[in-house]
């Protein structure tokens, strides 16, 4: 569940290894621009050539990213963080601190904000951009008090009738002595359980790293979106490689094997929607990425605000009860439920029967649309 901290904490190069071809062209372009300025030569043709080339190389590079490449993009220091989403998207931001019990975990940020038409409660993992800021929020690795802080604010949102936006970006929950003493596992488990009872809409977006239970502790929602170059899995590639390959160096293979990309998770029915990033990644287009996520979140909140709380909870429960089941699993479950209903009228008898679909949005043959998550797409 935890990952190699050295990897998480070490400085990330601003230029990722696979981005070198892009960087080479960019440097050449920069040199030409300087030259043009200095010498007053007309280099328009050359400049246009290199600009087009930069576009093409960027597009080509980003069209064929490996899983490990994406993990590195997800960790890029220039990638938009929860604090960027707050600054760029939310009006009237009021940060709220503390778990009301032990402390204020700075790896989790919570507060009130307004996204377009929607007043909401934001919860998210906080990472910093420079070393000092990164250290101040423990690199986005929360302690139990962070999860309890998030839960406390979510319960406040419920009482206030405000929807919740959760931004996930953590290498994993912190593996330390204090964290264990204060019940890290229990804090995460209680969040997951309690989120099934929060009677307001919850929208989750994995914006960077979705490190295991530390991510899931704030990621039970009615809609789960994931940015194109984010990763989300049961363990980090380094952690997985060091256990199964007995070497953290095999992280690229582990990343591939874990199927941790947004596309893979969408195919598995674990995320509802892949949120595209501009070509060249969110770290090259911070504001554009944040705004497009904001538009999607607003649309989801519009849809979800139509549902009454009971229906909202029934669907949330159903989503995770049947998550990642295949079409044939769901058909089998439905067949078994029908069979049991014939044998023994009335409810009960077949434990595996999922909550009967109650709304037109969830067709009875939910499986026909593929994995569980996909049927929820508008």
């Amino acid at each position, binding site marked *: 569940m935890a990952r190699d901290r050295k990897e998480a904490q070490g400085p990330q190069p601003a230029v990722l290894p696979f981005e070198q071809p892009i960087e080479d062209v960019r440097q050449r372009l920069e040199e030409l621009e300087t030259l043009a300025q200095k010498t007053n030569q007309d280099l328009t043709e050359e400049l246009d050539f290199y600009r087009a080339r930069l576009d093409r190389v960027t597009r080509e590079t980003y069209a064929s990213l490996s899983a490990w490449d994406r993990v590195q993009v997800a960790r890029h220091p220039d990638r938009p963080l929860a604090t960027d989403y707050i600054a760029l998207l939310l009006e009237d931001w009021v940060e709220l601190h503390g778990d009301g019990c032990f402390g204020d975990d700075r790896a989790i940020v919570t507060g009130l904000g307004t996204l377009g038409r929607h007043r909401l409660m934001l919860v998210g993992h906080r990472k910093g951009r420079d070393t000092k800021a990164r250290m101040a929020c423990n690199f986005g690795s929360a302690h139990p008090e962070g999860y309890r802080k998030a839960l406390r604010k979510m319960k406040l949102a419920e009482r206030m009738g405000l929807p919740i936006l959760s931004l996930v970006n953590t290498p994993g929950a912190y593996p*330390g*002595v204090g964290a264990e003493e204060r019940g890290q596992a229990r804090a995460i488990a209680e969040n997951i359980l309690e989120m099934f*009872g929060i009677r307001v809409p919850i929208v989750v977006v994995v914006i960077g790293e979705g490190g295991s239970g530390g991510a899931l502790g704030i990621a039970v929602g009615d809609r789960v979106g994931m940015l194109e170059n984010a990763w989300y899995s049961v363990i980090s590639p380094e952690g997985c490689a060091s256990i199964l390959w007995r070497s953290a160096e095999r992280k690229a293979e582990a990343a591939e094997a874990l199927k941790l990309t947004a596309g893979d998770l969408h195919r598995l029915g674990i995320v509802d929607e892949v949120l595209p990033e501009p070509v060249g990644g969110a770290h090259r287009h911070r504001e554009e990425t944040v705004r497009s996520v904001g538009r999607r979140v607003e649309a989801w909140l519009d849809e979800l605000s139509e549902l009454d709380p009971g229906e909202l909870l029934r669907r949330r429960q159903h989503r995770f009860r049947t998550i990642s089941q295949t079409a044939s699993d769901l058909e089998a479950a439905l067949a078994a439920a029908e069979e049991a209903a014939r044998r023994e009228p009335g409810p009960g008898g077949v434990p595996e029967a999922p909550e009967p679909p109650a709304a037109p949005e969830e067709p009875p043959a939910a499986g026909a649309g593929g994995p569980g998550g996909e049927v929820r797409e508008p």
Partner: protein
Amino acid sequence: MAWGRLRKKKEMPGGLWSKCSACGTMVYNKELEANLLVCPECSFHHTVPARRRIEMTADPGSFVEHFTDLQPRDRLHFVDQEPYSEKLKRAQQKTGNTEACLAGTCTLEGIPLALAVLDFSFMGGSMGEVVGEKVARTVELALEENLPVLLVSASGGARMHEGAISLMQMAKTCATLHAYREAGGFSISLMTNPTTGGVTASFASVCDILVGEPGALIGFAGPRVIQNTIRQDLPEGFQRAEFLLEKGQIDRIVERKALREELARILRYAPMVRALQDA
């Protein structure tokens, strides 16, 4: 997450003797068996295979196994040093079970209950899709038949070979426990050596009453991961059941020889059991 070579018994030639991993004493196997796999020398509560655990817990002959048709699948086509599908086959041959969880109904001192027991000898008791499904169905069965639930854990955590699918089992099991709790259910979690990772961070920690076995390692991150992170020695007794009790993280520690009696005593307070007795 899935470390699990802790305190494994070393079988000696002939299989008559085992070496206790806690105190190093050579123990006659028959004596160890008779003592419910608790070391007669140091009282360490060794990990119990799921079937043996059910024998120790349920009234004789009362266990009815459910959900036996669920077979694990290699949905990610996961290959590390060998294909996951091969690992599964080997674990099935070794244990004689299809997965790392046995589930069903039984009685305990006459009290009917639903139970799910994780099997550490099957890939470290790790939770993949089938383990999560069995735990969820056990809770749903209890909900429908108005039974209390006992969940017994011995696990290194979520199963990495199933990627995010195994992570989602944490949400799935908690979803059903939430529904069960809302419907007035009553659940007990028994955490045995070891209970870590995604199992501790989901169903094992959100039951109504949390019980640990003496000396059991219970935690979120494994001790080696923590040591690698903080680069300091860990405190004495760190993450053992006694440590958790002192830190207020579990309700009770119960010795194995007293377990049946204690569980029955607790279960008789459960609403559905009281209703049975009043009837």
